[in-house]
């Protein structure tokens, strides 16, 4: 390690010990925690699903009663959507985006830490409630009036609504962090048209989050107010409207599917490029497709509500939109096929997961076209056909790419490669198990099996297909177990990885595996879309950034479009106050489930914690003043 590297490590490292752990602001520490936490929720949600499948394996089963079953599927849906799928994509971005854009640190690192803690506390609250038998039971969509004050008895739906508040606060903050990082902290020379496609995907996703999540926060806050203080937003008897909930919820809910799916597309572009040993064909088309998907996804929400009173013309519009959104996805799929066709394939586990995506997602996308059509939707809506469709889309479109991404970036996260043999078993079991579990559900839906039923009578004749589906579900569980085993053993005994074990082209592979606390000892200057594959370095042009302080946390801010160096900015030091702010926020959120006064007294500790968070220290102030007077030139 050079002297520079040692100094940078001292400057950027999080503090040691448990107190240091709580105070961590390094995006890599937070990102890893985020990923592990989200994975734990994935496993928890999966176990709930396994229990549901066990209950449905045979007709008239008495394993689980209706009360628990309703909590199970509500918890499963809420966990997978709010505690796994969206956060895990953000978690991957929190770890990878600063590395991919060649930044020393993430923007707003303390806010990033706060967002993680808020997310963790929200998830814990939900599971504590569930184990105390106060698990929400009105579905992950919590339609009123079933989730309203009269029919949603007790505090169950309040916990659900407050979970939304937790995860949305977290999601919005992370989005701001990611957008700012992408816009202002890119390495010099990384113009917008040189952004890696995953970074583009996260940029689009983050903007979608900013526009979609306020809608559901509004909706869930109105729900809490209806339930807690007797407002009448959703009460038709007093001029409210139950349909208002559905519009607000799905205005968020449909884009949400895409902010799970779009990062998956981003992963795929990275995987396919690296393992085909060539840049993805049609970069501009790929970027435009991502952006188009982002826009179009806001025009689909009514296709969840075709069975309500929607005017005919309105329905036709939403059908047209639902079909149109297939086009940008098709563009990307064809571009990837072209890339694979003209590339040279390195058939490793990450690529297998990417290939699995093609099979599953294309089926899911085509059944999606089916569901976008009003007449067909009226038949299969709210049946197991939709259950099949959404799992084909979300598991095929997001979880398969995500597993591929985990195999791909595991060496970057940990410095060791994951086992290839177990990886293949993991893939094939998942792939086969998935199709065995979910393909029969298409048929069940057409035979009229509705969603969210805790059991069915033997005379319906749905027993065999359900049993097959359950066997498939357990196969998936076995496959995920293999993944865990693979990850744990590789962590200890995996092949040590070099900086760039896959021969990839993007910047995160330019630094050591795992990266040092400062990300890059030598901050890169970018001259191509895949900087590590850059064939012709212009002679005389700078290869690295010079002039950033090494003894203080300093990041280089660049311009929005061209990424020209603009100014240097101090990046905040580790502090436990984001953690304490999150604790105070959690107390207020949970308290306000029980009494509206919690909002009043609960805001006092938050104010104190946030003031402490922003309180400047003398040392910091002195240092930054010194630097302003005399920049540390080499």
């Amino acid at each position, binding site marked *: 390690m050079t002297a520079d590297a040692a100094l940078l490590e001292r400057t950027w490292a999080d503090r040691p010990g448990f107190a240091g752990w709580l105070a961590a602001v390094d995006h890599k520490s937070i990102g890893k925690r985020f990923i592990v936490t989200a994975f734990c929720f994935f496993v928890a949600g999966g176990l709930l699903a396994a229990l549901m499948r066990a209950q449905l394996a045979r007709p008239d089963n008495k394993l689980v009663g*209706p*009360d628990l079953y*309703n909590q199970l599927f509500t918890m499963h849906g809420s966990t997978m959507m709010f505690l796994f799928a969206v956060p895990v994509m953000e978690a991957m971005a929190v770890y990878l985006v600063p590395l991919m854009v060649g930044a020393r640190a993430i923007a707003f690192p303390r806010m990033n830490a706060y967002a993680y803690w808020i997310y963790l506390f929200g998830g814990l609250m939900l599971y504590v409630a569930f184990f105390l038998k106060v698990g929400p039971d009105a*579905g992950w969509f919590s*339609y009123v*009036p*079933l989730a309203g004050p009269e029919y949603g008895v007790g505090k169950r739906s309040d916990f659900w609504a407050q979970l939304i508040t937790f995860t949305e606060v977290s999601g919005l903050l992370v989005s701001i962090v990611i957008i700012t990082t992408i816009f202002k902290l890119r390495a010099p020379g990384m113009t917008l048209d040189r952004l890696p496609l995953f970074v583009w995907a996260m940029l689009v996703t983050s903007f979608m989050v900013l526009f979609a999540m306020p809608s559901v926060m509004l909706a869930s806050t109105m729900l809490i107010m209806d339930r807690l203080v007797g407002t009448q937003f959703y009460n*038709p008897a007093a001029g409210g409207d*139950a*349909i208002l909930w559905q519009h607000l919820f799905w205005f968020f809910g449909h884009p949400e599917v895409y902010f799970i799916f779009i990062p998956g597309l981003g992963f795929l572009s990275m995987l396919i490029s690296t393992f085909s*040993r*060539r*840049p993805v064909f049609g970069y501009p088309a790929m970027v435009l497709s991502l952006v188009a998907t982002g826009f179009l996804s806001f025009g689909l929400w009514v296709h969840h509500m075709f*069975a*309500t*009173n929607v005017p005919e013309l309105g*329905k*036709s519009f939403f*059908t047209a939109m639902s079909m149109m959104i*297939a*086009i940008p996805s*098709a563009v990307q*799929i*064809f571009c990837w*096929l*072209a890339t*694979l*066709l*003209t*590339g040279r394939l*390195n*058939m*490793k586990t990450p690529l297998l997961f990417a*290939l699995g995506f093609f*099979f599953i997602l*294309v089926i899911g996308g085509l*059944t999606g*076209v*089916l569901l*976008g*059509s*009003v*007449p*067909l*939707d*009226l*038949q*299969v809506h*709210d049946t197991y056909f939709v259950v099949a469709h959404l799992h084909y889309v979300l598991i095929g479109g997001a979880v398969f790419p995500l597993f591929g991404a985990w195999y791909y970036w595991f060496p970057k996260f940990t410095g060791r490669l994951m086992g290839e043999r177990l990886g293949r078993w993991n893939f094939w079991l998942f792939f086969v198990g998935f199709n065995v579990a979910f393909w029969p559900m298409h048929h069940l839906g*057409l*035979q009229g099996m509705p969603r*969210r039923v805790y*059991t069915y009578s033997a005379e*319906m004749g749905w027993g065999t297909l359900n049993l097959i589906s359950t066997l498939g579900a357990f196969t998936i569980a076995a496959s995920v177990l293999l993944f865990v085993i693979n990850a744990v053993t590789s962590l200890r005994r995996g092949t040590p990885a070099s900086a760039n*074990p896959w*021969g990839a*082209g993007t910047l995160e592979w330019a630094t050591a595996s795992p990266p040092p606390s400062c990300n890059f000892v030598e901050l890169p200057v970018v001259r*191509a879309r*895949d900087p590590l*594959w850059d064939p012709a370095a212009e002679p005389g042009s700078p290869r690295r950034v010079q002039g950033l302080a090494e003894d203080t946390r300093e990041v280089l801010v660049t311009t929005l479009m061209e990424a020209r160096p603009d100014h240097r900015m101090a990046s905040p030091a580790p502090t436990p106050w984001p953690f304490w702010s999150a604790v105070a926020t959690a107390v207020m959120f949970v308290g306000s489930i029980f009494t509206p006064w919690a909002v009043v007294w609960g805001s006092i500790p938050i104010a104190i914690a946030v003031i402490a968070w922003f309180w400047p220290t003398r040392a910091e102030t002195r240092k930054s003043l010194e630097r302003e007077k005399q920049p540390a030139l080499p």
Partner: protein
Amino acid sequence: MIGHALHDALDAAGPQAGHIVHLWWLTVAICTAVFAAVMAALVVALKRAPRAQAGDPPDVSSLTRAEPTLFRAVTAAVAASAVLLMVLLVASIATDRAIASLPGEGALHIEVTGHQWWWAVHYDDAQLDRVFDTANEIHVPVGRPVIVSLESADVIHSFWVPNLHGKKDLIPGHTTSISLRADKPGIYRGQCAEFCGLQHAFMAFEVVASPPAEYEAWAQAQRRPAAEPSDAQAQHGKELFMSGTCMLCHAIDGTTAGARMAPNLTHVASRRTLAAGTLENTPQNLAAWILDPQKAKPGAQMPAHPLDGSDLGALVAYLETLK
């Protein structure tokens, strides 16, 4: 599904479900073709592309050299997708219009109200003496359009008879409606399709489509108030019904029982099922249901009635007279 009730979205028994089935097969055909094409392209790519290792130098020639063949192929594929989607869009909208334009002359008007977890059915008519109520069973004449108005008494439900039509939600505070026509006689099972609480799974009903004459005979029978029980046992059962909990929630036309919180029982013995399409309507099932409804439908809002053998027998005997 009790007896031979049909429950299958692809086995159409009416014009609307029929249109949907046609659209279904067209869409499935196109989607299958697209899927096959994409998979074929993937297989070709996997077969044709040479293998490489991580250490092999990447091929970055595409950065400087255009790939016109690939460009044309991708453009053609996207264009083909757009055309196929357009075909599906037009077909879908045409089907939607066909479904919406069911001629409504001489339509039968039925009002269905969703309750947790059963269906109240009210047959409307311009002549007041032809109006009647029933529950969980809808009879319709074959070939005659039926306009079903849908309302909810509590939470959102969804009315779905897959063999006849798609779904329509029952939303508190809104009145929705759905038009149906059964073209084949038969018994079609319907089911609540919007999650509505504990017994959503067993909130079913049946649509019985019969020839017009048969339907008219049924309706005529339904319009008559309940007959006075003739034997002593049934008479005792009626006394129990009227003096106990039953009449606080249930109605039997022609008696003092007129509550609307629970299914109308005026002709309960004529129905095929009990407990919203859950149990076959036999005296044994009826007795078991009265004793402990929670056994068949945990969470159901009817309380248990631990009547002793003779009282239970009398009550069941009375209800069995309500043909």
